[in-house]
């Protein structure tokens, strides 16, 4: 089929460039695409952000409402992260309930926020054991030109940073800013044998869905790792990507902080 042929040509091109240590769009191997953050674009949401990572675009909206805490954390707010890979965003996305890719996307973004303890959940307790704030982090991809995951992570934390707790709407006092105390950043690399490409675009992904995502917090601690795709990872490359990811995350964290 012509589509397959085209994909093959793309793949060969990406790989031949890579053999020379180059990328098809001229970026360095460890270089992110341009990041644009548009905070607060959904005024009906408690917080929101549109993020463009190159041509990849993701909107994250935050909604909050009071609800029951988890029984094993009676004095903590609850984060629920959900991703919809709507068919508008890519010719390969299908309508319907979340598939394994959107589930994984949502869970890895969630892990970054949760494990970095970016949100002070204890400040979101209304009545211990009975009533706490539920935070819905809804990831809405609108254009998938590769690396939706990092774009979603950036959009999620950016949206949280401008979120107002809607206390007054529920008769619970005055609105106040969501207590955010860290900026977790995920860095995803495409693995091609012993080589890697940070922040792969869609054309680069034609060599396979072989990625490693490393999320860090502002202390450079690793807070989440996810190997995704049917490939084998060498220890050497893993070690190298720890460094690369921490380095990139620092830069992105600065961009996020400045935009909020």
């Amino acid at each position: 089929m012509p589509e397959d042929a085209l994909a093959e040509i793309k793949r060969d091109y990406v790989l031949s460039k890579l053999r020379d240590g180059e990328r098809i769009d001229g970026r360095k191997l460890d270089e992110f695409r341009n990041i644009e953050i548009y905070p607060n674009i959904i005024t009906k949401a408690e917080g929101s952000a549109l993020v463009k990572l190159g041509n990849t675009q993701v909107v994250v909206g935050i909604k909050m409402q009071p609800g029951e805490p988890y029984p094993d954390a009676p004095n903590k707010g609850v984060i629920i992260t959900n991703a919809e890979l709507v068919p508008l965003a890519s010719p390969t996305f299908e309508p319907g309930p979340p598939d394994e890719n959107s589930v994984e996307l949502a869970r890895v973004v969630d892990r970054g926020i949760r494990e970095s303890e970016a949100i002070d959940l204890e400040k979101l307790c209304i009545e211990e054991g009975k009533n706490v704030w539920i935070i819905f982090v809804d990831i809405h991809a609108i254009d998938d030109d590769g690396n939706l995951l990092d774009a979603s992570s950036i959009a999620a934390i950016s949206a949280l940073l401008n979120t107002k707790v809607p206390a007054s709407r529920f008769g619970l006092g005055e609105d106040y800013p969501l207590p955010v105390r860290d900026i977790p950043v995920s860095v995803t690399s495409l693995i091609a044998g012993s080589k890697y490409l940070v922040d792969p675009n869609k054309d680069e992904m034609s060599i396979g869905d072989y990625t490693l995502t490393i999320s860090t917090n502002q202390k450079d601690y690793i807070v989440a790792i996810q190997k995704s795709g049917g490939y084998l990872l060498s220890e050497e490359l893993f070690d190298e990507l720890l460094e690369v990811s921490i380095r990139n995350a620092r830069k992105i964290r600065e961009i996020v902080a400045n935009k909020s």
Partner: protein
Amino acid sequence: MPESRPEKLIIDGKRLDGRKFDELRPIKIEVDVLKRADGSCYLEMGKNKVVAAVYGPREVHPRHLQDPSKAIIRYRYNMAPFSVEERKRPGPDRRSIEISKVSKEAFEAVIMKELFPRSAIDIFVEVLQADAGSRTACINAASVALVDAGVPMKGILTSVAVAKVDGQLVLDPMKEEDNYGEADMPFAFLIRNSKIESIALIQMDGQMTKEEIKMALELAKKGAMEIYKLQREAIMKRYVTEEGIEVEEVNTDA
């Protein structure tokens, strides 16, 4: 904590947001905003913010969905969970299923689908923020996205609603007018050679006399012509700025 009805929806001959009865909300249209889609459009209409994408004509799977004589048109109206006051559960509800159906049918009537047998033209519209009239905003965006995708149509579809509030017909109602008004009536028109040719979508609920219905139709037509100009402008701007000459060929009217 539902908001309560304002005492009056019309004060001193003006609407709550200061508009005249026959005045549209501010509209913003951007063409070709998505890379992956074959055609796309971002549109704001008051507080509505919607993105439309068109994929196709493309192959249909599974095969038994194919129509050997023409393209099938699919239309998916979807609201982001954060687009409304109270979070909406993801996935289609009965309201979006109905809106998707009538919007799809409006486009079926104007797309030249006989040119693409066995294929599908997919129109996806995401409501990022909803106020009253999100279905009309979506149709307007989808219409531009179809032109951007180069899908041949008999003309442009342009959509707008009319409401009756405090006994008065008003163009392009915003949320309060929609929630507390006496009637709501969305339209979509086929516009060709800058003339309204026929009705591609009409719905109504509330209470109106026959005469009011006819007046509402006239008011909607006036509003549609204004929107049509903005749709045309956005398309031309896109093709003028980037490719200069191509404007002649776009020919949204034929």
